[in-house]
């Protein structure tokens, strides 16, 4: 287990190093000169050269990359070209909103997905099963902006139950989180169903039934306990995905998370922020994967990782 952990962590560091190379190269792919963006159009050549020197952009590429890495390790992701503040601070200031939305989204994903999947598995092959699975597909086939705008129109505008947009109270969280929960919940329902179907086929389930345990007990206690691992793993992956911010949902609801920060930065070609958000998201995805694997091995004694 320890050996496996060490190897996985080592591997993850390797991947993250690769990610830094690509984010670093990203800044050279972008057809905009950061010096010009900072100095403005009317700057004299001397000013342009001075700023270029201050940013270290006149140094050879490997040196620039080395400096970028050293700064990263110290938690310094550079300064925004447009907003004149530290990228690390900007991202940190958006973190609470992103984490809150993530928690709300995962809550609704589980609330909608798990009961649906359990129900479908217990009615396997019947009409109810098919109906639930088609409904799950509707969820994963619906773009977030369509669900978001329709929920906004119905519940915030027509029925005026929730605020139209913004951030601050729990009421503001409901619709954006529900949007993500509905579109993502379909995956959870499908995963729960296939995991439950697999478990309910096992011998010990037959034994439990033979002992006379009630169907509800068989499904919810004996079955679910062993079917829950892939779902926990999925939450791990989800955390990674949500850390890049929900660009679309945040745009629809004016939610001040990392996604909004990233989207504004992309529109203004504010390279340091784009690089920073990409990196944070990559770290979260790699960590999420790692956590999912560790959780699987911790909770399931049958999985011996080595």
């Amino acid at each position, binding site marked *: 287990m320890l050996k496996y952990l060490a190897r996985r962590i080592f591997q993850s560091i*390797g*991947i993250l190093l690769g*990610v830094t190379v690509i984010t670093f190269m990203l800044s050279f792919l972008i057809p905009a000169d950061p010096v010009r963006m900072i100095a403005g159009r009317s700057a004299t050549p001397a000013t342009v050269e001075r700023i270029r020197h201050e940013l270290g952009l006149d140094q050879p590429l490997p040196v620039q990359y080395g400096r970028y890495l050293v700064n990263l390790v110290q938690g310094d992701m550079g300064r925004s070209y447009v907003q004149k503040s530290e990228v690390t601070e900007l991202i940190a200031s958006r973190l609470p909103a992103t984490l809150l939305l993530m928690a709300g989204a995962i809550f609704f994903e589980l609330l909608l997905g798990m009961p649906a999947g359990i129900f479908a598995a217990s009615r396997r092959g019947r009409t109810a099963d098919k109906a639930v699975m088609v409904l799950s597909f509707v969820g*994963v086939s619906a*773009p977030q902006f*369509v669900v978001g705008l329709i929920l906004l129109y119905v519940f915030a505008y027509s029925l005026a139950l929730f605020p139209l947009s913004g951030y601050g109270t729990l009421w503001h969280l409901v619709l954006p989180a529900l949007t993500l929960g509905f579109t993502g919940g379909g995956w959870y329902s499908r995963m729960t169903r296939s995991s439950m179907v697999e478990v309910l086929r096992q011998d010990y389930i037959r034994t439990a039934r033979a002992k006379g345990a009630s169907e509800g007990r068989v499904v919810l206690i004996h079955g679910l306990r062993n079917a829950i691992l892939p779902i926990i793993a999925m939450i791990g992956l989800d955390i990674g995905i949500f850390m890049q911010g929900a660009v679309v949902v945040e745009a629809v609801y004016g939610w001040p998370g990392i996604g909004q920060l990233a989207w504004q930065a*992309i529109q203004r070609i504010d390279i340091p922020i784009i690089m920073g958000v990409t990196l944070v998201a990559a770290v979260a995805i790699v960590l999420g994967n790692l956590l999912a694997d560790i959780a699987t091995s911790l909770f399931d004694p049958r999985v011996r990782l080595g």
Partner: protein
Amino acid sequence: MNYTLRRILSDKPALFGTLVIGVTVAGAVFAPLVTPYDPAQQFFDGLTLQGAPRPPNEQFWLGTDLLGRDLYSRLVYGARSSLIIGIAANAAAVLIGTLLGTTAGYVGGVVGTVIMRFTDLMMAFPALLLAIALAAILKPSLWIVAMVIALVNWVQIARVIYTETRALVERDFIEAARAIGAAWPRILFRHVLPHLVPTILVWSTLGIAITVLLEATLSFLGIGVQPPTPSWGGIIFESQSYFLNAPWLVFFPGVAIVLLALSFNLVGDALRDALDPTQRGRE
């Protein structure tokens, strides 16, 4: 194949999906014949006296947009964008994924390791963010959008194909082919690839659903298909400022996107079940 076809036709959701895809493709191909108006024409009576778009009525079946254009005609023509990008981008992604996956799986060694470490790297990248950044930086057009989507979407296919190729290479019949001296292109194309056809087929279908959604999302952010070319996501992007007063401008294109993506998902899912030999005879 007959068996596969029968399985799919007996599956009601998949039949529904096939029908929707058929109607959408027919509508896109014969768009001029099935639309009453030119999608770009701005009608004088397409706007109310106050200049607002008109709700659905007998003249404009699904209403008009902010410029007084017929929404129904724009939706039918918009299907072209969704289908062209959906099919082209996904075909490219499947091609790249299959090429890299089989190479890594069959050749193995250093080349295989390099390819698979690179896909690991790509998996760690936030895909949506990457697509948005690329599309925003490269001045978007229909084909640029398709390319961006392909560049983001090939990764998973490569991993699936890699795993299957690895398993195949261990099998005796590949060993036998190698033993009688078959050259590697022959082994790859005649012995390995045919076994990958079911997987490729399933991904070719399911992948279109993912692609259609990604195209719609990029267009909704204004960095996908550019006006005047109509696209479903683009119609919603253009009308979002006014949509609380004209909900049909979001509702109809939204339903179109969901239906098309859903259909490709349903057909792909049925294909997967039908082509999976371990699922035969079960039900």
